[in-house]
C-alpha cells in the first residue's frame, strides 16, 4: 500500500541501522511515547537490532493501558443497566475491571457494542431513542477530535439519549511527569506522530528547552522509527536539544487547526489519573460547561466508584519505562493476552502484549511482587 510499503523497505532500513551505528559514540537511552511505535519496535525487533549502546524504553502511550481501573468499573456499572447501550472501541472490551470486563457483561446479556468511529455511536443513538447510548471516550489527542465531533453531532442532531464517559489524556504533561521523576532515564524522546498531526509540536519546544531533551516527532513505520532514532542520536551526540520533525509527510508545526478548535470547544483541560502512574496535573480532558449535559458520569451517578489494582501487576513501572514486562512475575504465566491481569497486556498497543506477541521470554528472575495464590484464576 502506498505510504506504507515504501517505509518498510529492508534495504533502506539496513542503511539506517548502519548510519545509527556510525554516529553513536556512547550509550544513550531513548523513549518512544506511543504504543503504536512500541508495537512496531518490538514486533520488528528494532530494539534488539540497534547498536547495544542505544537502549529503547517504552513509554506510557497506550490509551487503553492508562485508563484508570476506576473508569473501567464505571463503564461496567453503566453497561450493566438495562436501559443502556454502551459503545466503545474494541480494545476496551477485554480490559479487566475489578471483578469482570465488558465482554463478560455482554455475554451475560448487556448491550455492549464495538464501534469503529464514535459517529457510529451517535448514529445508534438516533436509531434507538428508547435507549441511553453511552460512548466510552478514551484516548490521547489523536482520538479527541473524533470524540469531540461525536458530541457536536449529537448536539446538532438534538439527541438527548447520547452521552460520553470521558477518559481523555494528554501527552506533554505525561512527558513532564516522566522527566520530573527522580529515576528518569530518558535522554531523548520519539514523540507520537499522530498526536502531533492533531496538536502540532509547539507544545514540545518548552519541554526540549527546559529539560535539555531532544524530541523527534516520529511516524510509525520501521523506517520512520529508525530515522527518528537517528535524528535523536545525532542531537544527543552533538549536544543539541531541539524539537525536530521526522514525520514531515503528515505533521506540521501548527497541527490540525480545525481539529484543535473542536477539541477546545467540547473539552477543557483537567487533572487526570493515569493507570499505574497516578494523578498528573492538567493531563486530561473533561467536557466543557457548554456540553456538561453529555457527561455519562453525572448522568448515571457513577462519580464515586473506586477500584483496586491486581497486586501482581507492575503496570506503573512498565508505563514509565523503568521496568520491562519480562521483569513481571506474572508475565506470560498468570498474565497472557487471553487472561490479562493488567491493561498493558490487553491492548495490542500495550508493552506487555507487544512483548508477548513477539514471543519475548520471561527472564526467569522475576523482579515483580510475588503473585499471591489467590490470584491464580481470573476473578
Amino acid at each position: 500500500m502506498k505510504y506504507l510499503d515504501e517505509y518498510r523497505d529492508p534495504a533502506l532500513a539496513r542503511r539506517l541501522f548502519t548510519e545509527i551505528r556510525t554516529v553513536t559514540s556512547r550509550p544513550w537511552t531513548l523513549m518512544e511515547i506511543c504504543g503504536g511505535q512500541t508495537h512496531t519496535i518490538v514486533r520488528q525487533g528494532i530494539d534488539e537490532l540497534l547498536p547495544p549502546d542505544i537502549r529503547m524504553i517504552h513509554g506510557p502511550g497506550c490509551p487503553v493501558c492508562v485508563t484508570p481501573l476506576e473508569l473501567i468499573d464505571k463503564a461496567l456499572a453503566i453497561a450493566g443497566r438495562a436501559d443502556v447501550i454502551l459503545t466503545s472501541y474494541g480494545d476496551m472490551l477485554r480490559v479487566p475491571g475489578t471483578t469482570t470486563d465488558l465482554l463478560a457483561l455482554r455475554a451475560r446479556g448487556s448491550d455492549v457494542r464495538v464501534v469503529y468511529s464514535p459517529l457510529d455511536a451517535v448514529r445508534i443513538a438516533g436509531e434507538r431513542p428508547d435507549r441511553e447510548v453511552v460512548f466510552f471516550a478514551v484516548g490521547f489527542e489523536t482520538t479527541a477530535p473524533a470524540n469531540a465531533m461525536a458530541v457536536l453531532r449529537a448536539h446538532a442532531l438534538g439527541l438527548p439519549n447520547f452521552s460520553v464517559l470521558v477518559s481523555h489524556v494528554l501527552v506533554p504533561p505525561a512527558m513532564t511527569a516522566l522527566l520530573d521523576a527522580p529515576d528518569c532515564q530518558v535522554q531523548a524522546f520519539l514523540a507520537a506522530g499522530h498526536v502531533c498531526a492533531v496538536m502540532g509540536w509547539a507544545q514540545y519546544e518548552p519541554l526540549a528547552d527546559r529539560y535539555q531533551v531532544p524530541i523527534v516527532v516520529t511516524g510509525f513505520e520501521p523506517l520512520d522509527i529508525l530515522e527518528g532514532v537517528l535524528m535523536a542520536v545525532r542531537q544527543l551526540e552533538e549536544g543539541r536539544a531541539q524539537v525536530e520533525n521526522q514525520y514531515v509527510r503528515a505533521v506540521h508545526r501548527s497541527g490540525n487547526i480545525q481539529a484543535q478548535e473542536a477539541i477546545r470547544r467540547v473539552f477543557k483541560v483537567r487533572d487526570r489519573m493515569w493507570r499505574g502512574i497516578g494523578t498528573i496535573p492538567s493531563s486530561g480532558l473533561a467536557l466543557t460547561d457548554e456540553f456538561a449535559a453529555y457527561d455519562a458520569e453525572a448522568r448515571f451517578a457513577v462519580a464515586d466508584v473506586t477500584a483496586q489494582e491486581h497486586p501482581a501487576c507492575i503496570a506503573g513501572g512498565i508505563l514509565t519505562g523503568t521496568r520491562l514486562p519480562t521483569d513481571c512475575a506474572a508475565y506470560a504465566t498468570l498474565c497472557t493476552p487471553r487472561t490479562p491481569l493488567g491493561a498493558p497486556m490487553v491492548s495490542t498497543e500495550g508493552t506487555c502484549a507487544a512483548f508477548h506477541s513477539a514471543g519475548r521470554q520471561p527472564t526467569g528472575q522475576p523482579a515483580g511482587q510475588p503473585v499471591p495464590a489467590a490470584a491464580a484464576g481470573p476473578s
Partner: protein
Amino acid sequence: MCLGVPGRVMTTIDVAGLLMGTVDFGGVSRDVCLGYVPQARVGDYVIVHVGFAISLVDETEARRTLEVLRSMGAFEQELGQELGQELGQELGQELGQAPR
C-alpha cells in the same frame, strides 16, 4: 486505537453539514469523516484514525523523505550480513500483513 492508516480518498459527500467520504485502504474501503481536512480532494491520501481523517499526506514531503533515505551513505557491508537478512525477513512478513 492510536494506529493511524494512510488511505486514498475515493468520494466525498456532504452529510447534513458534515464532510464525509469513502477512503480506500489497499482494497478495503470505509466511510470516513473528512470534517477536519476540508481541503481534501478525491485522489488525496489522508491519515485516518477511528474513522476520522486527521491529516492530509504531503506527497512532496513524502517523496523527499524517501530520497534522503535513499541517498544516505551505502556502507551496508559494515553491517553483518545476517543482521540485514533477519531484518529483511521480518520486514517482509510485515509487508504481507493486512493494513493495520
